[in-house]
Structure formats: structure tokens, C-alpha cells
């Protein structure tokens, strides 16, 4: 009996510690920048195995670090989860990339592998400030400017993908959050 308990506890601890590491905690190869998390070495053969596990566990092939840099956020700047019932303002910095896209995924869609309410704005369609920065609103009601419609319910995540950054630009991008996520109101 003691043997079975020890094995069961060991298996559970092994599984949960692996998934904990793959969610971007210490020594996992992830970089946290404000509310955003990035895996800058993803896809490389010498990348942390947790980085590969992170993407595959989420049903995604690791992005090639050479082609693009990805930032994910499931929380706002104050650490609260991104909720469909709230409105948010995303204020990006100038992004030194050839082009970029900001995508909103309802958590439920990600879990179920369906894309019923995916919203996206790219640098080709967004309204940019003179310095290349941009401001986005996430809400149910349409807003002028760059607007992403919030999902009807539940939580959501944001993914910022930047394509074609030079090594120097990547270094700059990984030194500060790509955008601030400010919660405005909640119903």
C-alpha cells in the first residue's frame, strides 16, 4: 500500500512540476515582461525542453525564433486575468519588426481547438502613431480606432507576434514589455 501511495504521489508530483515549469516559471527559458511572457529561444535544438513542451502542450508547434517573436498575455498589468466582461486599452511601444499582429483568443476556443471568436489586427491594418506605436481597445461595443471585439463570456488571451526583427531589434524587444494592458471598466 505504501509503495502504491509513494508511486502515485511521485507520478503526480512529476507531472505537475513539469507542467508548472512549462507554463513559464524559473529556469524554463521563458522571459516575463510585465503582463507578457515570451519564449525567445523556442524552436532551437538547444532551447530549453520546457519551451518545446510549453508550445506542444498548448497544441502548437514551437515558433521559429528566427522568423518571429511571440508574446502571450493572460493577465492585465495589475495581474488580473483578462475577462470578457471588462474593457481594456492596450498601448504598444514602437515595435521594431517588419510587421506584427495582435490576436485575441477566447480561452475556451484555445482549449477546444476552435476559432469561433478570434480577433486580429496587424500592422498592415492598424492605425499607427507617427512613431509606430499603436493603441487598441478591447470591448464589446465598437470603438473608433484599433478595436478588438471582446468575446461574449469567459477569459481570453492576447498574443503579439512580431515578424522579421533583426537580432538587435530582438534584444530591444526583449528588454521591455511590447505593450501595456490597462483595465478600464468591468461590468
Amino acid at each position, binding site marked *: 500500500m505504501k509503495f502504491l501511495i509513494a*508511486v502515485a504521489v*511521485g507520478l503526480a508530483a512529476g*507531472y505537475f512540476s513539469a507542467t508548472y515549469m512549462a507554463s513559464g516559471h524559473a529556469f524554463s527559458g521563458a522571459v516575463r515582461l510585465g503582463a507578457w511572457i515570451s519564449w525567445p529561444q523556442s524552436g532551437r*535544438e538547444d532551447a530549453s525542453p520546457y519551451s518545446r513542451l510549453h508550445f*506542444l502542450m498548448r497544441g502548437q508547434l514551437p515558433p*521559429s525564433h528566427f522568423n518571429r517573436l511571440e508574446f502571450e498575455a493572460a493577465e492585465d498589468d495589475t495581474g488580473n486575468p483578462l475577462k470578457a466582461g471588462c474593457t481594456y486599452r492596450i498601448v504598444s511601444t514602437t515595435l521594431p519588426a517588419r510587421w506584427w499582429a495582435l490576436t485575441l483568443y477566447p480561452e475556451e476556443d484555445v*482549449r477546444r481547438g476552435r476559432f469561433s471568436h478570434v480577433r486580429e489586427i496587424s500592422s498592415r491594418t492598424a492605425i499607427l502613431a507617427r512613431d509606430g506605436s499603436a493603441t487598441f481597445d478591447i470591448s464589446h461595443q465598437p470603438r473608433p480606432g484599433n478595436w478588438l471585439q471582446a468575446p461574449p463570456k469567459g477569459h481570453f488571451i492576447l498574443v503579439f507576434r512580431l515578424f522579421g526583427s533583426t537580432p538587435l531589434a530582438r534584444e530591444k524587444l526583449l528588454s521591455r514589455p511590447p505593450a501595456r494592458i490597462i483595465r478600464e471598466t468591468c461590468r
Partner: protein
Amino acid sequence: MMSRLFWPGVALLVAVIAHVAYVLYMPRLDMRERLDALTRLSQSAGAFHVLEGRETALLARTPLRHMLYGVCVIETSHGQVEMIARLPAGYWSLTVYSDSGDVIYTLNDRHVDADRLSVIFRMRKDTPSGLPEVPRLREGKLVVPLASRRALAVLRTYIDTPGLYRRIFKTFASSTCRALPLSAAGPASGS
């Protein structure tokens, strides 16, 4: 004292083994399932297939909404595989993944100024220097040596102008992927 620590020690040992096994083998299992599913979808290994709708979930649970994905499951156990990619104007990328999910090779439209790219995949060979073979151009074809028998080539392009979707889709879908007969494997087989 020792007998008190014995069972926690066993649990700790099992935890370490389970942790390492999960981290190292789960990606391989995941990739195997993914490659099998994509092979079924393309009807066979070595056929080019453009993913539509929910098929995209086989590559990414969080795909870019306007990204179009074409895949070829590469199976080099019987020889070489040639992929002829028809490339749209604008952004595209080709990424080759190993059977454990690592990126083996990648390039994009900034590296190739053409509307057609021919890539030959074959098993990596030993070199006299002992260094691993690297991809190289041979007779106008890019030869990519692989360390694993199975791999996945993913061609991506971004279409943010809806009116261009069908045209770019047609261009992408005219890409091909096929196993090369041994007699045709000449240019890439020399090392």
C-alpha cells in the same frame, strides 16, 4: 530515521523520473500523433496539403487568423522527398520541424526572391570532418539533410486582404510534395 525517509525518497525518485520522462517524451508522442493526423489528412505522407478551417488546429490552437498554412509530412525512410513550393508575393515562410518538434530549418521571403522554391529532403549523411551536414543549394535546389526519418514542412503566408484569399490559396495549393524515385535522386545524393 532511515525507515521514515524511505517512502518519501521513493516518491521523490518517481517524481524525478516522471518529470524527466514527461518533458522529454511527451513532445515526441505529440509530434508522432500530429504527423499521423496530417498524413491521414493529406491522404499519404509526401503530399502537399493546404489546411482549411478547423484543420488548422492540427498545427496551432492559436493560429493567426489570416495566416494560410500548407504542410508536407516528410518520410525519408524510402529515399528523398522533393517539395516544390509555389510562393505568393509578400510574406511567406517555410519551417521544417523534426519529429520531436524542433525547428530544423527555416527561411522566408527575404531570403528567396522567387515565386517557386524546390527543396529536397533526405537523411543526413556522415561527413569526413565529422561535422553535421548543413543545408545547401545544388543545381538550383535547396537540399536539407534531416537527422530524423520523419519531419514536417510548414509553409505559411499571411493574407490580410480578403479579396486575395482565393488567388493566394490557389497558388499555395499548386505546391507539390513527392517521394523521388531513386534514379531521380542524383543531384542531391552526392555529399
